[in-house]
């Protein structure tokens, strides 16, 4: 059980990444693919967080007395995740905007049918 406890975040992250990848690879609807990308991003963010997470750790604030550095959660991944979330949102927004445009121009969101550019 302790295995699961230790690695539950990683398993979750891995699962999310796999789900995201599966959606991207198997769905042909653009919106679903974007959702897949989003899930993939979430999985990765979770992974980043869990890299720095210590079970029952505390916030890394030194001004509070009585806390030792070993119990603190690593703050760097959290900063990373913040940035990554921002970037993810930007990409997501852009993707959705493009999806709207695409739908207007092609009349469909089926990626298999949007294949004029090839070879």
């Amino acid at each position, binding site marked *: 059980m302790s295995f699961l406890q230790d690695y539950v975040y990683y398993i979750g992250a891995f699962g999310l990444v796999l789900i995201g990848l599966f959606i991207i690879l198997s769905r042909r609807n653009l919106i679903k693919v974007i959702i897949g990308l989003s899930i993939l991003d979430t999985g990765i963010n979770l992974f980043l967080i869990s890299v720095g997470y210590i079970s029952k750790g505390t916030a890394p604030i030194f001004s509070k007395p009585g806390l030792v550095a070993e119990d603190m959660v690593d703050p760097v991944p959290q900063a990373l995740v913040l940035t990554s979330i921002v970037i993810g949102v930007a990409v997501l927004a852009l993707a959705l905007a493009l999806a709207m445009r695409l739908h207007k121009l092609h009349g469909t969101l089926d*990626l*298999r049918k949007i294949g004029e*550019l090839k*070879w």
Partner: protein
Amino acid sequence: MSLELLMVVALGGSLLTYVLGRVSSRLRNGFAVLVSLALVAMVASLYGKALHVSYYEDFLGMSLVLRVSGLSWLFAMTASTLGCLSVVFSLSYMKGKERTSFYYSMLLLVNAAMLGVVLSGDLLSLFIFWEIMSWSTFLLISYNGGPALAAGMKYFVMSFVGSLAMLAGLLTVYGSFGTLEFGGVAAGMLSASPGYILAIFVLFGVAFGTKNAIWPFHAWLPPAHSEAPSPFSAILSGILIKMGVYGFLLIIFVLVGLRNFMALGADGLPLHTVLSIVGAITILFPTFMAIMQNDAKKLLAWSTVAQAGYIILGISFGTSLSVAGGVFHFVNHAVFKALLFMVVGTVEYRTKGVRDLDSLGGLIKKMPLTFAVALIGVCGLIGVPLTNGFVSKWLIYKTLILERSPFLALVALFGTWGTILYSYKFLHNIFLGQLPEKYKDLERAPMTMRLPMTVLSIVVVLFGVLPGIPLSVINSIDTSFGLKPLNVTLWGLASDTGALNTINILAAVFAGLLIVWLVLKSGGRKVSVDQADNYAAGAAIPKDKYQYSVGFYAPLTRMVAPYLKDFMDSFYMRLAGWVGGLGSGIRRIYTGYVGDYAMYIVLFLAALIFVQLTWSPW
């Protein structure tokens, strides 16, 4: 006279010609002629000198050198002279055509690049000028558009393959010897292993062979020569492809050294034998191809391939006689083939672009001088005694017999008979027979066309009667290669292995001519009659139909055509098709469906990790 100045004049002249063409076409024409004349003078003044200057100290760590030797002087002289004559010839030929400034500037650039190739003192300069020569030639071949485009493409691709092989070769040389100067390379080659030398020779041989259009690499030449503008065809056939000959001479005698060269190859089949067999194939097959042609320039183009075979055959034996024969044949071929291409150019110019051998005829009545020079050129090509071609071919035959190669001699001599067939077809179908009605009012060639042709035809005869003049220059080249000097006299050769004396032949022929002419004179009255006043078994002569030129050698064609497949050419074309097909096939992986693309990414990653986990190669 410094070599840098010469190259600056040559390259700068080409550039300035274009600029001046923007100002005034007359100014440009004058300037182009002036530059090419200046180049002739400058090259001529280099005679007998041995200069060696490093003009670019550090090009990526290699120094670039110009030098002049006897060999390079001969080639430079031929190149600049032909260049000059061709520019003069172009003056009327190109009148009224579009993009003339571009044409002249490229013509001069090709000229400059050729001078650069032969005056280079290291392999890198040689390569640089070689490439400049290649692409400027490509532009000129493509100049006419239409079928010329395919011809240009074929030329470029084959020539590019050749030059890349050369690049690989020269960089290998650099890798092993650390220098590209001829002297240093030659010194390094002395101690190199035979396998290494063979590899280098093959790499360079592909480049030189492609340029020289020897047999398996000949495919580009016929279309390129026939589609290029005629004055440029003259350069192309006369001197440009001979850069390959220069290359072979350079690598055999200067870089590798004759003794090393003769020792190359397997025991039973030495490399020089392979080379001479290739030369023989290059004589035989294109000769028959030339007989089949109906396009005047294509005929001459195939003939060029065949003559290149003679040159290679001469060089490959590596005796003083054979090398003299090969080099002399290069000079001669440059002269008479340029002359013949100019003849076609003149005909083309006057008949508004007709060079189909089936639809011309009788032009001797309208262009007697053009016919006369064509006749002289053809005689040189066949090698009729008292023209230059005879002497060089005699030297080659003599070698083949002395070296006991009767089969090669057979090919060479038989090739000469083939030459007669196509040469006569060339003369007959253009100049002899009935003059078609539509050419009744044809004018004779303009002055600027007659001048270069006359000069060249004089050279054909001069070198045929006094072969000692060029042979003494060639003899000094022979000597510089370390070969035994020939005993050259003004009239030919006075050697212990069989003499050649043109003065005897000259005297005999003149006496014969005189006697026969007197006999003819003594006969009855001669009246000139019109071409329509002919024997037609009593029937009226049908206009424009009393001519036999279509299918001139039809029976022979029927016989040999089934066996005469240019399978190398079709192989190259099929290869090009395959590459195109491969490209069209490979690009199908870009299916247009983004899911596939994502799959590629994921699969690639998975494969990387899988391979590492299973075999851990990294």
